[in-house]
């Protein structure tokens, strides 16, 4: 239902991935996808596969790094973790999103009477 919202705003998923990695440390693709779903309280139903394009993009920018490792239940998986550059970028992007959402909140809070008169 709401799943297309994430796709509409380019870069949203990238920011979520960065934040997730910053919060939980090293994690594999599936884990990241799960955490995002949980954090959004299943309001976003994300095509989990989409996350891999985001991961490779972030990796190429040097914001996250990747390494093959073993998961809790003994499976081989690729583990991602945020880099120092990634943290700086996260700070910037988060501040930007915060400002944007404040603005959006104020704009959407305008009372309907004004437009009616």
């Amino acid at each position: 239902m709401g799943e297309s919202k994430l796709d509409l705003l380019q870069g949203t998923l990238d920011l979520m991935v960065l934040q997730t990695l910053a919060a939980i440390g090293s994690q594999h693709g599936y884990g990241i996808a799960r955490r995002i779903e949980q954090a959004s309280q299943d309001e976003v139903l994300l095509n989990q596969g989409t996350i891999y394009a985001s991961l490779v993009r972030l990796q190429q920018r040097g914001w996250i790094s990747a390494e093959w490792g073993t998961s809790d239940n003994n499976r081989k998986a690729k583990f991602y973790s945020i880099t120092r550059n990634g943290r700086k970028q996260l700070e910037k992007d988060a501040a930007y999103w915060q400002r944007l959402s404040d603005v959006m909140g104020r704009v959407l809070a305008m009372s309907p009477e004004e437009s009616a008169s």
Partner: protein
Amino acid sequence: MSILRRAFARLRSFASKPPLDAELEAEIAAHIELATQLNIERGLTPIEARRQALVRFGGMDLVKDQHREARGIMKLDILLQDFRYTIRSLSRDRGFTLIAILLLALGIGANIAVFSVVNNLLLRPLPFPDAERLVWIAPPPTKCGLSCATYSTDAYDEFRTYSRSYQDVTGYFAFSGPGNLNLSLGGAPIPATSVDVIANFFQVLGVQPAMGRLFRPEDGNNGAAPVIVLSDAWWHRQFNADPNIIGKAFDINGQQTTVIGVLPGTFDFGAVFSPGVKIDALTPLNLYGPPRDEGNIITMIGRLKPGVTLGQAVPDAASAAPHMCWNNKYPDSCKGYAKDGVVPVSLKEYISGKLRRSLVVLWSAVAGVLLIACVNLSNLLLARAAARTKEFAMRTALGASRLRIVRQLLTESLILSSSGAICGLALAAALIAWLRHQTALALPLVSLLHIDGAALGWTVLIAVVAAGLFGLLPGMRMAAGNLQDSLKDSGAGSGQGRKHERLRSILVVTEVALACVLLVGAGLLLRSFLRVLDVDMGFEPQHAAAVNVDYDDNVPNDKTGALSAARRGVIFKQVIDRVSAIPGVQAAGISDYLPLGQNRAWGLPWPRGVKQPENVHGSPLVYVMTPGYLHAMGTGIHGRDLTWDDGPNSQAVVLINRSFANFLDKYAKWPNHDAVGHILGDGKGLLIIGVVDDVHEESAEGDAGWQIYYSAMQNGPNGAQLILRSTLPPATLSSSVMRTLRDINPKQAMAEFRPIQSLVDHANSPRQFFMLLASSFAGLGLLLAAIGIYGVISYSVTQRTQEIGIRMALGATVAKVQRSALAKTLRLAVIGIATGAIVSLVVSRTIAALLFDTNPTDPLAFAATVLLIGGVALLAGYLPARRASRINPMVALRNN
């Protein structure tokens, strides 16, 4: 920095695509397993758990595509895909591909070849360092040939002293004849040709030796040891490229002459200064020896000081001119040069300026050929695109963007045009190699022709432009097509088909019109060439040959020259008598110079007792000959020929040509306008014993100038050319003639027999060259246009197979079906020819200056063109028409 890193990462991931893909697969597999595991833990059955995991993951292929797009260079991927797809589809359609590449190879190849010639002659600087500073110093052309285009040694010295614009001035002896060297290696001497150059010649031009050294000032002094510098070609041919040749001495013209240097292959004296004549060696000119008083003998070449422009050099030369005397001993002779001026022009202009117009015309002609090839290809591609409408519609329906499809079509064009360009380059290389060896061609710098970087750049440029030209139209057409119509359209007889056909017809009309313009141009040039061949040269070039005769008329203590003149007469009479006795020889005679070769003048002899007006300029060209020469050449005489009695002690006699006689008659007003029997000059004077036909001495195209013929027993000739008239081929005759000559003079060199016709051919060779090229290009254009017509008519017949079948089933006769296809052809041809003829009327005016005795609107050239194109068009249309008439109605109707 991060941009750079990303670009690098992308490039690397593009390069290592398969391992990265595999890694992604592994990652996805891990993802699904983890998710499945979790779902099982939540109590789902393993199958349901895996299904749910897959659903949550989303479209597998989409994910992979996204991933690739994010990590790699998608564009490069697409390009590679387009490339592979194009190669596949082109190799499926082999016939089309071959024809397309062939068309392009011909069009592009011709363009590269002509560009190389143009580049060599017009664009590239001459093959000397700082060549733009080199100038040719001569008066404007006048009526007395080479003698008025050269300077005396005194004048050269004064010019060097008084001019200020030049780093240095040099020159060479302009009157060296072919075969003026006799190299004796034991056995019969071998003839070769050398030119005497002033010692600073190579310094001024900036030529360095390939081996040894070049001339020093002392090499030209009186009593200097004889030295020689070999051309690269002669060194290879005659001396087997002997690496130890420097310092070796050979018997040349009876003197031990030391080889001091070998010229580099990049410097060919003949190619630069005397096109079409092979110069084997260079020898130093002794400025202070015997040539000092021989009058105008030196052509001057100067190197301007850095920063001095031609505009500054011209007035500088004019101010130096009054100081220049023909001979410093005669103060009277100092005004001669001031009058005509001493005018520097850029050396390049002197060498190739005359050819500029022809080359530009040629260049336009090949551009026309390429244009026709492109139009033709555009047409072919359009037909192909029409057949592929559905394919493209299908691809669009499946999600390909228009841009993607146009890009695909342009990729196709580019691949075709680059393949064509590569084949064209090979073609051009072959053509250039062949041209380089046309040593008899009187075009400068031919031996230096090669395909250089500029030509390669030009190739790339025209390949890209051509691809754009022929690829864009079908591409746009395709992209603009309506998707649904195309999918529904069955192809035959629908609106889309009609629109295509109209466009294709316009293209064919364009082709025919272009071909028409090319043919008219070539026709005019061909007709001019035929007119030139028809010119009465004043002698009969066929069945005559010339051979250089060596003789020794030296008589010791001969103060007046009369003794050696008498001795010369005896030798020449003996040569002519004995050679004439050889079976098959009809006539023989000797002259020192031949028409269309070198020339010189000795001033203007004036009729005795007639006042010479001030403003009369020019002087007749001088030939010193024996009795029988004019007869052997086939030149008619009014009056009498020389006899052996016209010797040193009798009245000096001359024959003059008709133009000169008529000119003198304007002032002398001879009774019956007959010059014979009158006397020229003062003192004993020159008795005119005959008036001879005008001989074209410089070119077939120019006016015949003035000529005067002296007796070889009364004046000193500059060598001796024996002319033989015989219907026997020269090869048969040469051995017996050579035996006779060597019998008379054992020092006679094994000289070459030169057919007189070859002199004429040589003089006409530039015109012939341009005419041949223009005709080949026009022929190519015609062929391409014919292919175009055939393609369109044939295609329309194929498209209308069903319709024709129905008509025939309803009773249309074979003839009627044929007529309808032919009528279509005729319509295209007529519109094309009419357009072409109108354009030709305009274009032909621009080449009027290249024509000889031919009107730019020459009806014959136009009529022939119209008939030729019309005929070829009908033939090209007839083949498909015949096919149309053979359609079996039953098969045609059942088809589809």
